[in-house]
């Protein structure tokens, strides 16, 4: 008896919530509009942040130090140098590139330039053997530099050490800016989420304020708290669901448009293709996230907004 009664009540709450959603569509649109914008921006920020981090990672991965060796350097000297370098804390990997390998690479890089290739094949291989050092932390390259500048090491080298050419300074700036931007980005997302939650809360509260008389009447007729509040929560949850779906659709549309427009081109520092892949790889996580956040915001705000109209008088 009691269970079936609860089922009846539960069904009624859902049904009334759905009905209210349809009947109050116009009031709901305001709440949903704010929610869609919020959810879209949050999702967009998450993807942008990931893309940015990825770009920086890619650039820093490419940072290496090339040490060009004199032709006179013996195998023993070379091995010692490699071992010494490897013993440095910030060195992740040391790769030896022989004169022959250097020539092969050079030829590959200039495959389209027939003149240059003919010229180089007519001379004795002019390219030096080299060591490519991959640092663990590209921000702390000084340690390696100091080591390489030492007199005895310096004498083994045929050319100036190359620190990823001219990119070094730019890379330095990017890497230091990265951590700042990431932190600022996360803080921004949080602040924005809070502000929009307040707006959504306010919108839902307005919608409920308009119907406060209904709440009071239901109360007077002996309706339980859940019976009164339930439909409002159901209604707000539908707002959240609809908004979550819409925000995913918007982001998806943005990607499909931008992927076509910017195909194969790079937008400076942001790699659209990566964003797209990232979005697709985490698709279901994002769907769950958007729906979850939407439902949560809707449920919590309607829960709080109905509270004051459901209180019983306690003053004597």
């Amino acid at each position, binding site marked *: 008896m009691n269970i079936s*009664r*609860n089922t*009846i*009540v539960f069904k*009624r709450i859902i049904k009334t919530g759905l009905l209210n959603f349809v*009947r109050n569509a116009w009031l709901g649109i305001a709440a949903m509009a704010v929610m869609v914008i919020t959810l879209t921006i949050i999702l967009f920020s998450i993807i942008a942040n990931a893309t940015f981090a990825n770009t920086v990672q890619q650039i820093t991965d490419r940072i290496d130090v090339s040490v060009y060796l004199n032709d006179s350097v013996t195998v023993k000297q070379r091995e010692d140098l490699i071992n010494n370098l490897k013993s440095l804390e910030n060195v992740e990997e040391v790769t030896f590139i022989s004169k022959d390998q250097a020539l092969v690479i050079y030829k590959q890089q200039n495959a389209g330039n027939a003149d240059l290739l003919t010229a180089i094949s007519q001379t004795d291989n002019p390219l030096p053997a080299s060591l490519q050092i991959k640092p663990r932390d590209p921000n702390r390259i000084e340690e390696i530099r100091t080591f390489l500048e030492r007199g005895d090491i310096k004498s083994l080298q045929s050319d100036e050490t190359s620190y990823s050419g001219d990119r070094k300074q730019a890379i330095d700036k990017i890497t230091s800016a990265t951590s700042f931007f990431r932190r600022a980005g996360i803080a921004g997302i949080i602040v924005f989420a809070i502000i929009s939650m307040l707006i959504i809360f306010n919108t839902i509260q307005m919608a409920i304020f308009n*119907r406060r*008389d*209904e709440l009071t*009447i*239901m*109360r*007077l*007729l*002996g*309706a*339980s*708290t859940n*019976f009164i509040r339930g439909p409002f929560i159901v209604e707000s949850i539908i707002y959240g669901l609809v908004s979550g779906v819409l925000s995913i659709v918007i982001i998806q549309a943005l990607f499909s448009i931008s992927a076509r427009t910017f195909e194969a081109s790079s937008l400076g520092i942001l790699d659209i293709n990566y964003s797209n892949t990232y979005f697709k790889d985490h698709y279901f996580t994002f769907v769950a996230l958007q729906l979850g956040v939407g439902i949560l915001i809707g449920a919590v705000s309607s829960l709080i907004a109905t509270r004051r109209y459901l209180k*019983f*008088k*306690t*003053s*004597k």
Partner: protein
Amino acid sequence: MILLDRVTKTYNKNGQALERISLHVEPKEFVIIIGPSGAGKSTLLKLLTREEKPTSGKIIVGGIDYETLKDKEIPLLRRKIGVVFQDFKLLPNKTVFENVAFALEIVGMGNKEIENTVPRVLDIVGLKGKEKRMPKELSGGERQRVAIARAIVRQPRILIADEPTGNLDPKHAWDVIRVLEKINKFGTTVILTTHNQEIVNKLKRRVITMEAGSIVSDRAGAEYRG
């Protein structure tokens, strides 16, 4: 059925609304409360539905002591009391049928039973055929009767009617009173407040007269004394 013992209600600063009211209503009784506006009639009824809490004194209705009543139990109490409000208090977004059905939905009655019960009660109050109207499409008298239908549909043991004839022409006023008498005959305790002298005189029931927050007379089969 209803017991009030030295009940006082004081609103902030505005002085006393009720002063040491003691009252006893037997089951199945029909009680009329009269008195000028501001005499405390509405406050008294609000105390009975636990819309307000007494400043002091004891209230026991249907064996329930309001002092020990928890917030959670208030809805259960209200389901046992039918109330016809002066301002109807209909749900504006629900049809006539839905308004009456709502009282039954609250208590978890099945849909079939609701579909059977509501038309019967609407028939009693003379609103057959207006089930699908919205409250704003009804006249004052019709709204009043929806409110009555809603109050009696649960067959409450106590029915409180606050000026149910206030907005009605004499014919409809008497229709309403007849409904109340019928309910009373079936065993419901009725508490009625009214300004209508004719009704009081013709009903010949127990009449409680209030003035300035106190009961000044309580007589059986009494007539209205301006």
